[in-house]
């Protein structure tokens, strides 16, 4: 592997190209959390009792923040990276400069992570404005680290899928068969403790489950040393996925 600081240039390039779309996408990204929290949190919440002493919308919002980071970085490194690589031929131009394939791939993953972190924070912002979640510097910092890790993990996983994708259609397998189950069975929408054992077992294999646990503990001010294990369940697959993403995408690029 031959990664250098130049991955930053790729991030910067994507930012420059993105400037034009900031306003429309921010509006969309603000509308979505609003919709989720109102429809599910308040609408469904009205029929539910308390979750660990708190309202359903409180329970839901903390999970949705990290889930949103996961979804955004996933879609960025599937569709948007594919467009840059195959359709716009941006990477062909980049690779003729001192950038190597590793810099380009890592730069795009970091960009996907960045978009994920932003969308997670927008969800947080909406929840905070609705008075659902507390705000403090230590919460913000913990969430930031958590979403960076989730963003790199799911950006890398998506990049691996993209490295094998002959066309857009290919992404459906991954989003429907992998991302959707993770989204629905990581404890974002309902607690896992009353689920059958086998579902609990599978859910514990999902890194998002562990991120949701950490996020909830952060908001409830209940972080303890046991959460290092949850963190490990995110960081370990992240390191592996990142390495594999560089490996497989490089194999696709360099012929």
């Amino acid at each position, binding site marked *: 592997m031959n990664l250098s600081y130049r991955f930053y*240039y790729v991030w910067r390039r994507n930012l*420059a*190209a993105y400037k034009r779309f900031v306003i429309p996408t921010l509006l969309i990204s603000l509308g979505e959390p609003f919709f989720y929290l109102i429809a599910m949190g308040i609408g469904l919440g009205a029929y539910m009792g308390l979750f660990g002493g708190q309202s359903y919308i409180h329970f839901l919002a903390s999970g949705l923040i990290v889930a949103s980071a996961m979804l955004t970085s996933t879609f960025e490194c599937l569709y948007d990276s594919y467009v840059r690589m195959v359709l*716009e031929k941006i990477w062909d*131009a980049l*690779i*003729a*400069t*001192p950038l190597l394939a590793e810099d380009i791939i890592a730069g795009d993953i970091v960009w996907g992570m960045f978009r994920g972190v932003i969308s997670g924070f927008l969800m947080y912002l909406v929840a905070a404005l609705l008075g659902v979640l507390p705000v403090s510097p230590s919460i913000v910092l913990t969430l930031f680290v958590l979403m960076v890790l989730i963003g790199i993990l799911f950006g890398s996983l998506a990049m691996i899928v993209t490295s094998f994708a002959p066309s857009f259609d290919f992404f459906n397998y991954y989003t429907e068969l992998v991302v959707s189950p993770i989204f629905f069975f990581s404890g974002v929408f309902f607690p896992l403790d009353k689920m059958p054992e086998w579902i609990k077992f599978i859910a514990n294999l999902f890194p998002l489950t562990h991120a949701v646990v950490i996020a909830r503990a952060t908001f409830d001010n209940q972080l303890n040393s046991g959460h290092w294990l949850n963190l490990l369940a995110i960081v370990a697959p992240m390191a592996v996925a990142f390495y594999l993403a560089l490996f497989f995408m490089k194999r696709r690029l360099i012929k």
Partner: protein
Amino acid sequence: MSSIVAAKDLVKKFNGFTAVDGISFEIKEGECFGFLGPNGAGKTTTIRMIHCVSPKNSGELRVAGLDAGVDNRDIKRLLGVIPQELNLDEDLTTYENLVLYAGFFDIPRPEARERIMELLEFVELKAKMKNRITQLSTGMKRRLQIARALVNQPKLIIADEPTTGLDPQARHLIWQRLRELKKRGTTMVLTTQYMEEAEQLCDEIVIMHQGKIIRQGAPDQLIREEFGAEMIEVKDAKERVFRRPATLEDVFLKLTGRHLIE
């Protein structure tokens, strides 16, 4: 004169298909070196190995004294590449394209800005500085790709079919710019399917066919070697015989029995 590119028995295969079949050549500093050949001859594949985006299968390839495949970053820093396919950043403006590209070479912003203004002047695109790429004509895009390739003040310019698909007027504008670079002593590698282009711009050419180099020399020298004189006899449609200057196209036809452009 020392050589800036030296290749020996260079081979490139794609899943068993041999695209470049053991070619050797040497490109000297200050010259314009041409690869002439029809579609699929292996020109782009050769070029891509020189600028280190495609690894060779075997043979030796040295660029500016460095080992292609090992010192890729250092080699790429020294080169300016004008690719066959347009790959400008459509999401950005003309100016942004150049500024970001300069950044990839670690060129500081103030210095980049100065160079870019000169280059925009050079390729006559100053008026289009703030336009998005989608608003440029194909000829303008090609010229912008020339400016982009010059941003890092390269030791060697590589142009892969810089005028393919352009109308005659746009083609002459590109030729003018390339000739101007040549006058300044820039070393250039050019690939082309047009013998006229090779004759106009190149000091030395190799003729490529099916992954092999079948002849090498200066354009007029190649014609003389193959035909003895620079005039050949041809028959027109009515079987009347007349004499005209021989061209590289005739050389190619004689060597392979095929036309350059098919």
